[in-house]
């Protein structure tokens, strides 16, 4: 009888498998029609809606170009937060969570791999939104800002998906992630400065706004579009990097906490 070979799961393989399979199984908004709708339709309709509102308001602190640019960026929440936070919820609904929890797979690879495709769709959403802003709404972009825009788009996409994974971690404990996803899908429109300067808000809400990566991302995009230098952009990029590190760390921490609870009580999949 040949000896049984027990092979440790390859980290990269787990990461890649999750990157490929999660969009077909557990992530929300990942059917091709939904992806196209998220990338092509949502930015345009959202920008148009708030552009007309801004035009009617005539508020000098939030002119049409300011609002359009904010809403070119804000739809990224669909492909990052709303899509990603459903991943743990779906595992529970499909009855696959128990199998995941008893597998020896590395949790970081298992969980973070799921963010791969949403990062790409988030980047596509941002690029399309900014193209709409430039060519349909005639928002001016500073010459030579393409490189800085590309860096900002990359950092913002990763940090937003990190935030989505954090919410997915919270959703491990909830009955459904849809409510949480919907709240964070739209709350950014109010607290991130997408439609008016954050300073318009009461102070406690401003603090909450500054906890969202979207707030820093919108500031970075606006600064880039206006041709701001590295001294302005570096702190904003730093905030996005910090947000990514914190949210991913917290997401994995939550997995650990809820996994231990699940193994102890056997109740986590009974949402």
């Amino acid at each position, binding site marked *: 009888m040949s000896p049984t070979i027990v092979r440790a799961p390859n980290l990269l393989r787990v990461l890649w498998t999750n990157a490929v399979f999660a969009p077909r199984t557990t992530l929300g908004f990942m059917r091709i029609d939904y992806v196209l709708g998220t990338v092509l*339709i949502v930015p345009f*309709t959202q920008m148009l*809606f708030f552009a*007309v*509102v801004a035009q*009617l308001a005539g508020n000098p602190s939030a002119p049409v170009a300011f609002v359009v640019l904010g809403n070119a960026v804000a739809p990224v929440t669909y492909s990052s937060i709303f899509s990603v936070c459903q991943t743990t919820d779906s595992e529970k609904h499909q009855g696959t969570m128990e199998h995941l929890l008893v597998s020896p797979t590395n949790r970081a690879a298992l969980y973070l791999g799921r963010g791969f495709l949403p990062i790409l769709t988030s980047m596509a959403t941002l690029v399309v939104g900014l193209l709409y802003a430039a060519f349909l709404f005639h928002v001016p972009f500073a010459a030579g800002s393409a490189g800085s825009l590309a860096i900002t788009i990359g950092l913002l996409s990763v940090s937003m998906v990190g935030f989505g994974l954090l919410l997915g971690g919270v959703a491990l404990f909830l009955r459904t992630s849809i*409510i949480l996803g919907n*709240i964070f899908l*739209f709350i950014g429109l109010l607290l991130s400065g997408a439609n*008016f300067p954050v300073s318009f808000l009461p102070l406690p809400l401003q603090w909450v706004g500054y906890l969202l990566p979207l707030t820093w991302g919108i500031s970075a995009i606006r600064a880039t579009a206006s041709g701001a230098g590295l001294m302005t952009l570096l702190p904003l990029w730093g905030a996005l990097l910090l947000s990514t590190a914190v949210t991913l760390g917290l997401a994995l921490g939550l997995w650990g906490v809820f996994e231990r609870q699940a193994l102890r009580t056997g109740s986590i999949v009974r949402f």
Partner: protein
Amino acid sequence: MRKVEPSRLRAFLASVRLSLLLFLADPQWVIPATIAPVIFGFAAFELYQGSGATLVLYAILGAGMMSMWGQTLYGAGWATGQDRELGTLEPTLSTPTSYLWVVFGRIVVNAVTGLVGGLVVFAVVSFAYPHPLPLHAPVEFVLLFAFVLVTLASVGLVLSAVYVYTRYAGFINNFGEFGFYIITGSMFPVVLLPFWTSPIALLLPPTWALDALRYASLPGYAGFGWGFTGDILGAVGTMLVYLAAAGSVYHRVEQHVLTVGNLQEY
């Protein structure tokens, strides 16, 4: 032998009652459909509040309208979808009462629960805005708001009928939502949109009804040139077309399910 006609009103009221009980049993589901309008209402309030009390009324009115829209779209999408998932579509269709009245009850309850979003925005804005809101003719306002609700329900009926034949109800709900808000002028007068959008806007009864509501309640409102009476006539006319279309499609659906029997597997 005398043929006993099933009571449509009784079926409608039973559907309303059951939908209401289901909503009260799990009211959290109002959040997905109304969170967007509430947030948009607050965002519009922040933009409008420096431009006078009339525009602040736009934000409240718009949030209420969008909230009802959201719930109607959501309710219409689920009106038949949920029956399919639970396996109750065919049994419900095989009852003597037309399915239309069952769906209509669900949609009306959804539209009414959508008022929650408008009330949230109204309560917060009333607290946060330091000036009185210039609402003219409050009685007419309430009546016309109810009328807007009925026009929304008529669109919901047609959508729910269409949704019987398509797997794209979720897609239309998610990606059509903003489009509906824009084209019906929920947060601004439709006349601000490019002229070519007007014919599309006028195909929807809520566009007319909302314009009439603004004529009646907002001082100095300048909407469609035909004024309040034209708006009411237009709303009633388009709504009747929608109701006739919904009735026709549902009749076809019922015939289809009896003939082919594959409705569950659309």
